[in-house]
């Protein structure tokens, strides 16, 4: 079982966002960057599948500038075997980014290619399924359960008002949602081992693509609200406001 996990480096979800001078990106100053939280589910799934199979290889693949190597090491510390740093910048067009990844993955002999269901920075939610299309592989997005047996995968995914159960043959591309597993924390031993694991650097160039970011702005502030009172005694005032002002009851 050979498994690729494609990861992204993103601002920590607790980070406060400010807009950089050019008005099309965030100001990274003072922002802590971490592995995309959804990618951790993909990393955990890959390591657990290899452990269950008792053999195989897990590979982290990350597109980005050199800072992404720190994030790659996190996945190696968790237990991934080796990594490839696709050195370059992704495009604002998810398809251009997907083409870079697909070109690298093609012919790699992977049984599974895993992604997080989305990256919590640009919320693009497209590179995984696009890679699947480009490689003409089966694809399931936002999975919350996964079983692999006899060369096929059975997955569950949450849809509005239900859970979809689907199967596909391997090789396949899957994107992982919260609920799939509980990602392990890297231990000291893992962190030490990660320093010695192979990390191959491959320079790449993404095309400009057909999507252009025009601007990035903070959302409008909500108008200031008010405290209607304290304790249960304030309930009548709240009901009055919801009935006659907000008209939502």
């Amino acid at each position: 079982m050979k498994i690729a996990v494609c990861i992204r480096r993103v601002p920590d979800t607790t980070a406060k966002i400010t807009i950089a001078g050019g008005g099309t990106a965030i100001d990274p100053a003072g922002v802590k960057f971490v592995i995309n939280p959804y990618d951790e589910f993909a990393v955990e799934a890959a390591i657990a599948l290899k452990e269950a199979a008792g053999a195989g290889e897990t590979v982290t693949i990350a597109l980005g500038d050199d800072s992404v190597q720190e994030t790659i090491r996190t996945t190696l510390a968790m237990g991934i075997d080796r990594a490839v740093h696709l050195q370059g910048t992704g495009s604002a067009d998810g398809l251009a980014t997907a083409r870079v990844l697909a070109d690298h993955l093609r012919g790699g002999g992977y049984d599974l290619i895993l992604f997080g269901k989305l990256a919590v920075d640009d919320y693009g939610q497209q590179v995984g399924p696009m890679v699947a299309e480009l490689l003409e592989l089966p694809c399931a997005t936002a999975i919350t359960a996964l079983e692999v047996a006899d060369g096929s995968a059975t997955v569950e995914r949450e849809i509005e008002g239900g859970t979809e159960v689907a199967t596909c043959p391997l090789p396949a591309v899957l994107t992982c949602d919260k609920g799939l597993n509980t990602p392990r924390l890297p231990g000291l031993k893992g962190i030490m081992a990660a320093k010695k694991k192979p990390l191959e650097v491959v320079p790449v160039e993404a095309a400009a693509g057909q999507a252009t970011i025009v601007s990035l702005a903070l959302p409008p502030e909500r108008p200031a609200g008010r405290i209607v009172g304290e304790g249960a005694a304030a309930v009548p005032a709240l009901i009055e406001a919801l009935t006659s002002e907000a008209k939502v009851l």
Partner: protein
Amino acid sequence: MTAILAILEQRDGALRKGAPELLAAARQLADAAGATVDAIVFGAADMAGLDGLGAAGADRVLTATHADFAQYCPDGIVATVAALAGGYRAILTAATATGKDLAPRIAARIGAPCGMDVTGLALQGDVIRVTRPVYAGKAIQTVDLAGTAVIAVRPGAIAATAAGKAGAMSAVEVPAFTRRLTVREVRAPEQATVDVAEARVVVAGGRGLGDPKHFALLEELAAVFGGDAAVGASRAVVDAGWIGHGHQVGQTGKTVAPELYFAIGVSGAIQHLAGMRTAKTIVAINRDKDAPIFKVADYGIVGDLFEVMPALTEAVKKARG
């Protein structure tokens, strides 16, 4: 290639709600370009509710019928849309679990840019300009998409309108395709509850509840709104295992925009606020008068939620008659 294609979802032979909204989004683009809107529906047999689509904005209603379409069949849908794509300026889906699964695949198949979770869209010269929340709503990105664009429109972002179009029915051919993924079944939830992302009213709880059993207080208030309300939760209590991930509102959960949002014992961490700040009306109940949730709430009550909630549930019940 000026027409706009709107891909509508059906399950078990009935259209999913959200079709009129998606047609309204399609009309925004079409009317600006003097173009027409085609709706397309995929099913295994005849479907109900298609006769209302003209009124909601469809000039034509295309039906694609195939035995494999009894369940969601992304490979068949992508193949069919790709065969038609040359005639369209934009291809729209709803940004639902299904729509978000489809849009990138279609885009990759036809070599088009893809805008996900779009909340605003307009023709701007040669491009389609879309706005979309990023960083879970902490920022708004404006993007220009050139050529034929594939756009997943966030439910609730664009209101349905009455358009009075013909909605003329027309069958389209499903080309040969390889079914790579097979949906075996759709399991209904154990309790038939409305999804937190689709609910008109969300009653959300956080650490202030103190114990998972106290979600009962929230369920009682939600029950007063009948099938319209869902229980939500902060990341802290989901990670603590008090309630399932499907209820989580915020940056690693769902982004919601209900008419009415109750934040009960929710402090208002930045990643939670990001997921609910576009709710129409926000009510916060918290013991800590300095809790950040009060900065976004329209109405707040400072106090012990165990004292306030029973009184609030009774009062809402009375107010709704």
